[in-house]
């Protein structure tokens, strides 16, 4: 044990904390070695910015006079239907939800220009959206129709709650078929026309603490520009994936459920995206601070882009039909070079997650910690399959 979370927080308070980004420690460890780097650095900040479809927000609206019970009724925000199957005034808006009149893929490939994600982006950008509610009316909530315009400040609460974010490891997508396909991994040209990847590589939060030794339920994080928390394992979290010698997962692995106050978030780190032929989604900026509690934390946080590898998957047949196996593995360094080789063919690569914006997330989190504006928390419970370091 090199230091505890309490000791790190004490150093944040006095401004003596030493913070590096996950990209910066790669070079530091190469120069000075793991032991020295672990002694010098208290916190490593990570970051990612990319489309995360299992994102959305719940809202509580101020009551109208007379009162209305949205639960069991039909409600939309910005023309996008929201889930209202709760009490009188709670609503959930998922980022992939679409207006009823959107043609979807009836006109193929669909454009999906405005969905739940766009409503969220409008709200965090300071724009108002229209709320329409139809209810059946009760003795205590007699109102049956309610239409109003609401900005983010007009809600009693607006909370981002994402059941699955921060995927630890993601596929590289290619298309072995004969026609262009439109997927959540972007436009994939036929006959290995391109290869798309969605990861921040050596900045990626869960890849820099691959065995989840410092992150757990209750970890405070950077989320959409605000503070948020890891509240639960994400859906489809895999507790015991296959791992390489560095402890990095080789197969689908950890995910996180995240929460944060939407009212504090910024459109710089929350952006609506329209995937042609696939749908609307939300790109989320998420960063995790990793406390350097022992040397192994530093060794794993310093794993570089050359050592992180991803499976290459065909999205024409293998993925939709759920066939196991891959077309091989490539490293983040190869992906970032702009070209990889698949089945003997040179294939251009394109990203879906932004490395530039991921760097901004990690840099912003570093600055907040260094300036005493962000303190670390000790997780209250580990994620399934993980063991937390005491500290």
């Amino acid at each position, binding site marked *: 044990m090199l230091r505890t979370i309490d000791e790190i927080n004490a150093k944040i308070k006095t401004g003596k904390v030493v913070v590096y980004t996950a990209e910066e420690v790669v070079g530091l460890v190469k120069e000075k070695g793991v032991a020295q780097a672990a002694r010098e650095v208290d916190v490593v900040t990570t970051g990612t*910015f990319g489309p995360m479809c299992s994102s959305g927000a719940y809202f509580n609206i101020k009551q109208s006079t007379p009162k209305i019970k949205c639960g069991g009724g039909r409600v939309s925000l910005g023309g996008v239907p929201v889930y209202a199957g709760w009490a009188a005034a709670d609503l959930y808006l998922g980022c992939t939800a679409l207006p009823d009149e959107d043609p979807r893929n009836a006109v193929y490939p669909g454009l999906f220009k405005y969905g739940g994600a766009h409503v969220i982006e409008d709200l965090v950008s300071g724009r108002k959206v229209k709320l329409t509610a139809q209810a059946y009316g009760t003795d205590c909530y007699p109102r049956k129709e309610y239409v109003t315009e609401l900005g983010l400040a007009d809600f009693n609460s607006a909370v981002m709650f994402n059941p699955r974010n921060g995927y630890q490891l993601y596929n590289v997508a290619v298309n072995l078929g004969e026609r262009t396909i439109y997927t959540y991994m972007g436009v994939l040209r036929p006959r290995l026309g391109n*290869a798309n990847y969605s990861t921040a590589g050596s900045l990626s939060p869960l890849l820099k603490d691959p065995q989840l030794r410092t992150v757990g339920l209750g970890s405070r994080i950077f989320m959409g520009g605000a503070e948020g928390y890891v509240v639960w394992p994400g859906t489809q979290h895999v507790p015991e994936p296959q791992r390489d010698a560095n402890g990095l997962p080789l197969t689908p692995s950890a995910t996180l459920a995240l929460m944060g106050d939407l009212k504090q978030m910024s459109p710089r780190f929350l952006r609506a995206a329209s995937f042609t032929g696939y749908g609307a989604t939300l790109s989320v900026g998420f960063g995790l601070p990793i406390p350097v509690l022992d040397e192994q934390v530093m060794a794993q946080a310093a794993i570089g882009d050359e050592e992180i590898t991803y499976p290459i998957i065909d999205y024409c047949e293998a993925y939709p039909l759920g066939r196991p196996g891959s077309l091989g593995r490539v490293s983040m360094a190869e992906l*970032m070079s*702009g070209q990889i080789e698949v089945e003997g063919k040179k294939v251009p690569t*394109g990203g879906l*997650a*932004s490395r530039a*914006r991921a760097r901004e997330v990690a840099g912003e989190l570093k600055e907040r910690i260094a300036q005493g504006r962000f303190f670390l928390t000790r997780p209250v419970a580990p994620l399934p399959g993980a063991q937390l370091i005491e500290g």
Partner: protein
Amino acid sequence: MVKKKLVISFPPRLIQEPVTYHLIRDYDLQVNILRATVRPRERGRMVVEIKGEKKNLDRAFEYMESVGLQVDPLVQEMRYYPERCVHCTACTAVCPTEALTVDPASRELVFDASHCIICESCIPACSYAAIESQF
């Protein structure tokens, strides 16, 4: 030798004008047609790369203007909005001419309009409407 990429717009009355023929034959220019759309009774548009002696190019411009063709530099046809771009770089994998590339240090998108042939492959690949075609 001078090389220029141009968009030539034809009003309906000039759709029958054999512009390419004149450019090659009368002004000794190399003409590479990158893209063309012609709709009868509407306007026609042609994206060309023209190469030749400067004085010939100047005379060709005079000719095109004199008959009433509108000639614009190519740059304005694809518009890149950096403030909307998140630098995901998905567009770079489908761009056939390396007009869209990634700066290896900053990992930010670089749009070099001089390489663009307005194929519009980037438009469905961009999820943030950061590139629009005016063509």
